[in-house]
């Protein structure tokens, strides 16, 4: 397996799709105890990350200008 990104750096999409894959692996594949424990710990961390991101999420609104995007404050 390639070196995993630190959980704190993952976006919600990354964290949740990794979590999904991890759960599927645990369900379908025979893993050694050590591997299973590692997966379990990683899974716990991913769940925490997902929950944090969902609880803290705030809609970002930007505006397209001639040059690029700027924060939109005209509401």
């Amino acid at each position, binding site marked *: 397996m390639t070196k995993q990104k630190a959980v704190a750096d993952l976006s919600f999409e990354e964290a*949740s799709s990794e979590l999904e894959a991890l759960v599927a692996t*645990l369900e379908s594949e025979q893993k050694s105890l050590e591997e*299973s424990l590692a997966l379990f710990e990683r899974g716990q961390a991913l769940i925490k990350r997902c929950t944090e991101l969902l609880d803290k999420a705030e809609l970002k609104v930007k505006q397209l200008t001639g040059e690029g995007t700027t924060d939109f404050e005209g*509401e």
Partner: protein
Amino acid sequence: MSQIPLFETAPHWTVTELTRYLRQVLESDSSLQDVWVQGEISNFSRPSSGHLYFTLKDFNSSLRCVVWKNDAMHLHMTLENGMALEAHGAISVYEVGGQYQLYVDLIKPVGEGALYQEFLRQKALMEAEGLFDLSRKRPIPELPGRIGIITSPTGAALRDMLNTLRRRLPLAEVILAPSLVQGDEAPVRLVAALQNLNDQVNPDVILIARGGGSIEDLWAFNDERVVRAVAASKIPVISGVGHETDFTLTDFAADLRAPTPTAAAELATPITVDDLKYAVVQMRSTLLETTQSMLERQRVKLGTTDFGLRRFSPARRLQTDRQRVDELDHRIETSIRHRLELSILRTHAQDQRLNALNPLEVLRRGYAVVSRLKDEKLIDSVKLVKRGDDLRVRVVDGAFEVNVTRKTSG
């Protein structure tokens, strides 16, 4: 005086009688009782009675008009001087004033019919060209990370959409491509906004929206340039123009038509933050359950091995056969028994290790999991550590690091 008899044969009427007669003549002509008249409003007045009075004029004539209060309540437009319209009603005479007038019951703006005909003509052309084919429709992503919005930056439509997105999917990022949404310049601006979102931002979905208005207000969304740009967009487009009852050609070209801007924001976010929270909770219990059952399965498997070894081992067979095969070498038997005992011991050791590794149950009882810090190798023997090694000790509520200072063999 030869003229007198002639004069005397003519009817002698009072003003009232004549006026009433004229009224009867007009009212008995069915073609005057069901007429559409086109003209421009002047002298409009709305007294406290609730009835409406105005004059319809064209370039050289004028016609007095009345709308009774009951009919006035059902007009779908606000009247004002200078407005061109078509009025429907019946011609009769107001006897007090001696004036014929139109008693209006329906009104429609002039030109609506013409605009609608143009709409149908263009729709038929583009339909024939295949611009609205269902096979062209792209699927709307279920969980957009980035949502492009094309609308007026100051309109209520934008506020409604942002509020809806904030409530349903605050994880998303919105990129607003501001545009005029009515007037002659609006089509060019709308097309540019679509192209900019496609080329520069590449969002997962685009909402093109405008609040309600008259058919003229929404007309930019029937402009052929806009309709073609929507159909050509690489990114799926959801339209939300006007109200429930308004249909524009942009709606037909879009991948999904929403009845309002708010509904467009809802259709863009089929999965909400609440759904995601629920899914995480679900995955959490699956993770716990699979880990637990995996550990349980391994424990059962080890137990079965243990049982099988005891029951079907060569040692047992040797024991039962010993009386008939008494020439069997005693040394072989002890050797096999020894090996068997070793494997039973090993099985038990693995079983215990399994228990110690169960993160859910056993850590809670005060056991700890020790791993080497540098490579996360699980430590289940003193042979795996040497002095100076940094180890990580995981207990039920967290972990800490230790350094090996001494080791003893058990």
